[in-house]
């Protein structure tokens, strides 16, 4: 399933490693995730669901959906899309619920870390924030669950749209490459500490914390208490699922997941793909599939017209790919994995028209039906959240320097409302600069000037036809933030916030049984031990 020749990409495959899958030897290239390596070997069925034992595969490819959980080196519920395959690794399919490993619990560290600014999420927003803050001299810790930084940006092989001047015409991967260079330079100077393969599992306000903010970070067997003066949440977005029977069959993937396989690891997601959604993402990813030599059966779009830029849609048409507007997927077909889909026409009220069903043969159904901001940590830290349709979900109220209603907690990128990479970069820069105020020495004025100029660029970016919608949403958020601040003071509104989970699992499937197991181990270990519990009944 590997793509050997690609018109744009060189996958730079280096050393091979061998690992085993259900007892059979397999090979991966170093730096490849387990999920990708299995896919390259044609293995799409990764587990069976807990309740109904339905086959489950890969979906988001970026650690958000838990659909790829397997048993790795005896440890159950490992998200194989964000863990690299390594030499000698033992990977097993997980049938239903996991079992505890019988091995000894390996080395586990419990460490207390301190930093100036903790940035959660290493996508374009988070990286930009880290770079700007470090440029001002602030100490930064950048946390990302993936082993490879870059978020959704590292998958974008096409030239950028939506931006009038900035980055327009440059491929996403190239922008990412430049950002990595800068980031590494600050890392070398000791200003940026990069924690990759690490998940921020919770925001805490413990009495004993050493700084204003405290994050729990889980990395492998280790757990870190990260104490920070400021926090920037740039956790991106979750890909939306669509409701139809069999939507959990292996072979139904999110567009980001498809891009990850194809553009990051050079692995064919399948041989014939049905694309769902004719917005920019759906149409561009379809074109990328064609570039990689993969057949696109059709693009289905429920709306009566194509949402993507005309130029992109025209390219697809030139390849003879039909774009079926006013259609949707009625169901996915197949046993064990996708072998086709039933499409159906929609009437003016978006109702399925009986008798208009058609069958399409395909081994992959790619969903490009939008994203929802990943806001768990923001809900949990108590930031005031509100639903904005323009932002595609609940987002925190924030001011024009990206600060939420919690002083010192900032947001940037898709987590503050779904937009695009170039705006995520700008927002990240603003958040990084604003957070650095007061932490970096004596350059307050310079920071303000730089923020002002980035704000201008951001406003320009949002002038285009596609930026307009987002700009409206941002306007509303700003207004609400202002009125919130106006009436502030005793606003601790509801004493029982609806969301107090530190990081709730995301429910993607109808039979949502595969849980995302966060790697907060209950380590039975010196540093973890707490003073003996002397509770004598007390309140109960």
């Amino acid at each position, binding site marked *: 399933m590997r793509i050997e020749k690609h018109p744009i990409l060189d996958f730079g495959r280096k050393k091979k490693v061998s690992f085993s899958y259900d007892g059979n030897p397999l090979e991966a290239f170093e730096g490849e995730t387990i999920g990708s390596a299995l896919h390259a070997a044609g293995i799409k069925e990764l587990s069976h669901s*807990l*309740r109904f034992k339905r086959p489950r595969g890969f979906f988001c490819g970026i650690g958000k959906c838990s659909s790829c959980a397997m048993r790795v080196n005896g*440890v*159950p*519920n490992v998200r194989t899309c964000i863990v690299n395959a390594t030499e000698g690794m033992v990977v097993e399919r997980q049938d*239903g*619920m*996991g*079992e*505890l*490993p019988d091995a000894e*619990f390996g080395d586990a560290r419990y460490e207390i870390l301190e930093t100036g600014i903790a940035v959660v999420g290493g996508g374009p927003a988070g990286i930009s924030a880290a770079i700007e803050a470090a440029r001002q001299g602030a100490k930064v810790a950048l946390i990302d669950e993936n082993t490879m930084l870059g978020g959704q940006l590292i998958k974008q092989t096409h030239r950028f749209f939506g931006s009038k001047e900035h980055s327009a015409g440059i491929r996403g991967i190239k922008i990412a490459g430049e950002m990595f260079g800068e980031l590494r330079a600050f890392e070398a100077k000791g200003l940026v500490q990069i924690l990759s393969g690490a998940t921020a*599992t*919770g925001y*805490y*306000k*413990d*009495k*004993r914390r050493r700084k204003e903010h*405290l994050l*729990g970070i889980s990395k492998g067997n280790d757990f870190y*208490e990260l104490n920070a003066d400021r926090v920037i949440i740039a956790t991106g977005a979750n890909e939306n699922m669509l409701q139809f029977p069999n939507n959990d069959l292996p072979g139904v993937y999110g567009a980001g997941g498809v891009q990850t396989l194809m553009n990051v690891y050079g692995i064919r997601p399948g041989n014939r793909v049905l694309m769902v959604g004719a917005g920019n993402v759906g149409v561009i990813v379809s074109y990328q599939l064609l570039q990689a030599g993969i057949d696109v059966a059709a693009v289905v779009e429920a709306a009566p017209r194509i949402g993507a830029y005309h130029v992109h849609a025209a390219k697809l048409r030139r390849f003879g790919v039909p774009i079926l507007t006013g259609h949707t997927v009625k169901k996915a077909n197949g046993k064990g994995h996708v072998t086709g889909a039933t499409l159906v026409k929609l009437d003016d009220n978006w109702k399925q028209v009986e008798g208009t069903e058609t069958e399409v043969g395909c081994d992959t159904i790619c969903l490009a039906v939008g994203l929802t901001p990943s806001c768990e940590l923001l809900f*949990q*830290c*108590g930031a005031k959240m509100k639903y904005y349709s323009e932002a595609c979900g609940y987002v925190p109220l924030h001011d024009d320097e990206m600060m939420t209603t919690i002083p010192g907690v900032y947001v940037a990128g898709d987590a503050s409302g779904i937009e695009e990479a170039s705006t995520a970069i700008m927002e990240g820069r603003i958040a990084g600069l604003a957070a650095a105020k007061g932490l970096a020495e004596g350059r307050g004025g310079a920071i303000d000037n730089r923020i002002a100029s980035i704000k201008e660029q951001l406003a320009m970016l949002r002038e285009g036809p596609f930026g307009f919608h987002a700009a409206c949403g941002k306007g509303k958020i700003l207004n609400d933030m202002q009125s919130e601040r106006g009436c502030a003071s005793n606003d*601790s509104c509801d*004493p*029982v*916030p*609806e969301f*107090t*989970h*530190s*990081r*709730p*699992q995301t429910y993607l499937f109808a039979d949502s*049984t595969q*849980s*995302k*197991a*966060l*790697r*907060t*181990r*209950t*380590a*039975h*270990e010196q540093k*973890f*031990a*707490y003073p003996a*519990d*002397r*509770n*004598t*009944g*007390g*309140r*109960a």
Partner: protein
Amino acid sequence: MQLPEKAEVVIIGGGVNGAGLAYSLANRGLSDVVILEKNYLTCGATGRCGAGIRQQWSTEANTRMAIESVKMFEGLSEELGHDIGLRQGGYLIIGHSDADAAQFKKNVAMQKSLGLGVSYLDPSEINGIVPILDAEGMGATCATWCPTDGHADPFHTTFAYAKAAERLGARIYRRTTVTGIDAPDGAVSKVRTDRGDIKARWVVNAAGCNSAEIAAMAGIDIPIKPYPKEIFATERLKPLFKPMVISFHDGIYFSQQEHGQVVGGISDPEAKPQWRAMPSLRFLKRMASTLTRYVPDFRHLKVLRQWTGFYDVTPDAQPILGEDEDVSGFMQCNGFSGHGFMISPSVTKALSEYILDGRASTLDMKALSKKRFVGELDREASVVG
């Protein structure tokens, strides 16, 4: 939805007790019942609880009430036409001292006299019940074991009650906050909400940790304080053990739910009454270190999420139940601390009896009036979390 102008009974709070009472009343033919819930059903303590059901109590009254409740839980799925997820995997209570052993023996004798199948265990017998426990690590000196204890799904239980009540004519208004209560001349007359007012003959205060606030609206003072209680759930694993394991000494309780996750909590000796809902790392550490002492294999277990709920705590950790002595028509149904789920069947049945028949036969509510806080208190010793 427009609120009705009046109702015979207005229940404030859509937790297991509010929903259970609406069902009990409607089931006996009083269907002019309204539930007002400021948010959504189960959003209070009910949706955040451990949902353990235990009959092993230290006082006779509580043991009776719990035994009665378990009998009712056993028939509830069928009665309500909706599976409440009852699983009777038993409760194993761990003791840590000679004093515990003496108290446990006394408890077991009393519980047996009431017909409860319960036994006193030596440490060597613990692994026969739950093989993965480390008796030495726990510092166990004894235990008691009742195989008919267990747990039920708090969401399904509440929804089952609510649906059955609605089928029988009760009405539920979500996103409706009670803002005031009119009680001129010592009798309730009207409930005010952010969506209009309702005249009522009976007003039931089942507002969980907000009950003191609701009582104050009617000019009544009750000593209920909110205690934040943290709890966590782990990843799902194949079944490892069935019972709920608890220790009053360590303040810990945990069980494995039907869907595989281990759910449990631990009390904080420094806990103060307050409205703090933010989960803490302190809890996570405390829970992790104690739990891995109880079950060393759990060092491999991953935490999925943690959250906070509130206990509505009275000075003796017992509920306040029944018609208020100062305001007639105002029914108290609150102060449940950490055990308001398990006794909800008898509590709601008793309250419905009082409203319909003028007296409760299921339960002696006199001892649970707010008046008891004036004199000496008799504390329930077997409380956890």
